């Protein structure tokens, strides 16, 4: 390689003095700086002019914004070192209220510029797009497609620059505005900035403040994020899908179980008997039934009591007794049925029939001992007792279904309310936004 007599010099960081107040300035982005802002007197200077002509002076409101990451700080983002060289506050107005966010200009002499944005503790790592997204303006809300991913329109607003500090690779002025449109597909956001002559597209990716504090080695803790940000990834997003997939799998298992037991169940009537109970008669009311055979594997026994009760009650003490072993299953059933008319119309409570399942009864010869009790003043009650073997119990499946459904519904509800909070800040907020949620 032939070497010329004047090889290009190593590029050096320049130290300059502000022509407005004499304060020293550091140019960190070499020849890329277009404007540089004096921190002492808030003069915006022409960095391309050797005499640093003052382009604008801006007044600083009382809420002077300070960058959380100081100018000159370096950190690694996606494997590349970047230095913070500029800072600006931008403000939009929605329904007359100002909302401000901060933008940090990051620089690497080989890779160029990158940006960080911060709004109420929510951070985005932003870079300029190299390709053009496709805007589907006919959709409602409009969407854009970029690299196969669809982004939904979130907000369009005029953003004004309200505070600047450090250096910028463009002509920055306080008061200048651009139309900023955000399209989201969390954790990413596509933004277009439109001025008269130019449209610039950038992509932001949601970042945790903690990660930034680590890479820039900042003291203390990052500010706590407030609320839900437009492209903040939902902490429930993957979980909701998973919980429904697990629910589906368990539901399937449940159905298989139910069909299996239903098909294999004997569901057989073993015994039935008709009886009469007169509550006015003194003496021993208890009796035993004829014996009957319970076959098959250990399974349940269903005892059904049907009565002719009318505005009255009866109490039945049952014992299912194994003739060979003497093992007894004791259970009591109250059957009561009341009905009538009042000012609200007809009413009823309870019913004349009752069914109970006795679980895990081994095979063998059994009989029932029955001891009815009743109001001594009532009189005669006729009733039937029916015994069935191995009856499928559907209530178990109902309870299991609810137990499975509860976490899935809870998570889905939390996810929906997260999305609700996200979209409440957008141009497509539900009409009730800002107000209280519906009462029950």
């Amino acid at each position, binding site marked *: *390689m*032939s070497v*010329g*007599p*004047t090889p*290009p010099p*190593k*590029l*050096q*960081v320049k130290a300059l003095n502000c022509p407005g107040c004499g304060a020293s300035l550091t140019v960190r*982005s*070499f*020849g*890329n*700086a*277009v404007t540089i802002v004096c921190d002492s007197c808030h003069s915006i200077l022409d960095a*391309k002019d050797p005499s640093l002509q003052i382009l604008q002076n801006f007044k600083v409101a009382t809420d002077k914004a300070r960058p959380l990451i100081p100018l000159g700080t370096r950190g690694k983002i996606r494997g590349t*070192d970047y230095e913070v060289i500029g800072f600006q506050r931008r403000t939009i107005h929605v329904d007359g209220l100002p909302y401000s966010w901060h933008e940090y200009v990051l620089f*690497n*002499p*080989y*890779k*160029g*510029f990158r940006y960080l944005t911060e709004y109420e503790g929510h951070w985005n790592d932003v870079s*300029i797009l*190299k*390709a*053009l*997204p*496709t805007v589907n303006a006919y959709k409602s809300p409009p969407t854009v*497609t*970029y690299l196969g991913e669809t982004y939904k329109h979130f907000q369009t607003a005029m953003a004004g620059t309200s505070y600047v500090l450090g250096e910028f*690779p*463009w*002509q920055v002025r306080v008061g200048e505005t651009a139309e900023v449109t955000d399209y989201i597909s969390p954790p990413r956001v596509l933004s277009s900035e439109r001025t008269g*002559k*130019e*449209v610039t597209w950038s992509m932001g990716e949601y970042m945790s403040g903690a990660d930034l504090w680590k890479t820039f080695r900042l003291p203390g803790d990052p500010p706590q994020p407030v609320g839900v940000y437009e492209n903040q990834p939902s902490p429930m997003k993957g979980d909701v899908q998973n919980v429904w997939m697990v629910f589906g799998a368990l539901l399937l298992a449940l159905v298989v179980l139910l069909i299996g037991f239903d098909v294999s169940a004997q569901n057989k009537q073993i015994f039935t008997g008709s009886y009469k109970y007169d509550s006015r008669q003194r003496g021993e009311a208890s009796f035993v039934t004829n014996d009957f055979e319970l076959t098959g594997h250990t399974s349940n026994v269903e005892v059904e009591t049907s009565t002719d009760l009318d505005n009255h009650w009866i109490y039945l003490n049952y014992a299912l007794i194994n003739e060979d072993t003497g093992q007894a299953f004791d259970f009591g059933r109250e059957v009561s049925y009341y009905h009538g008319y009042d000012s609200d119309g007809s009413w009823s409570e309870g019913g004349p029939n009752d069914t109970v399942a006795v679980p895990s009864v081994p095979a063998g010869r059994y009989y029932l001992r029955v001891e009815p009790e009743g109001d001594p003043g009532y009189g005669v009650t006729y009733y039937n007792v029916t015994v069935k073997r191995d009856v499928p119990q559907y209530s178990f499946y109902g309870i299991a279904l609810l137990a499975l459904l509860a976490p899935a519904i809870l998570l889905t509800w939390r996810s929906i309310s997260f999305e609700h909070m996200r979209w409440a800040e957008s141009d497509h907020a539900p009409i009730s936004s800002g107000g209280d949620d519906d009462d029950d």
Partner: protein
Amino acid sequence: MTQPTGTCPNCGAKIVFRWSSSVQTVCEYCKSILICTNVDLQKVGEVADLPPDSSPIQIGTEGSYNHKGFVAIGRIIYEYAQGNWNEWHLMMHDGTSAWLSDAQDEYAVSFAAPGRKMPEAGQCRVGQRFSWDNQEYAVTTITNAHYRGVQGELPFQYWDKEDVLFVDLRTETGKFATLDYSDEKPALYLGEMVEFEDLALKNLRSFEGWS
């Protein structure tokens, strides 16, 4: 391969061409702009001091694009509202030439695409679409720039320019086009946006405080 050589008609320095098809070069010693004629080199002008720029690329920077090696052998420097940008003239190792544009460290590689239909200079608006080679491009930037100087070898005569107009276009797939209205005959360049690291550049400039 023997490189064509000549003598600077202004200062007598030896001029070595890296690329046999170069039409213009700048004497590294006296900054004379030299045009290759059939017979010898002819001085047509002089380059004033180049503006300070901070492109990491320099004459002699090597890299590769689409598995083809290249070396930067010349450049045109423009000035626009955002500062300077460089159009680096690349000599590809297969003997063709290409351009690497570096505007604030945003890089694009493009190739001259002669013979296509082009809109008139005043016709373009941001967002307007044009098609070349079955690819639709949208206008993203219209740049009024100012010619600031040349360095090294170029494939055409380029000097004594003033204000120039460029129209940049992009596609959904990262392709890139430039309409160059700096000459009487407008020129079209087609290419794509590239990532710095994909060019595998060597022999770059160094920056104080950055390794």
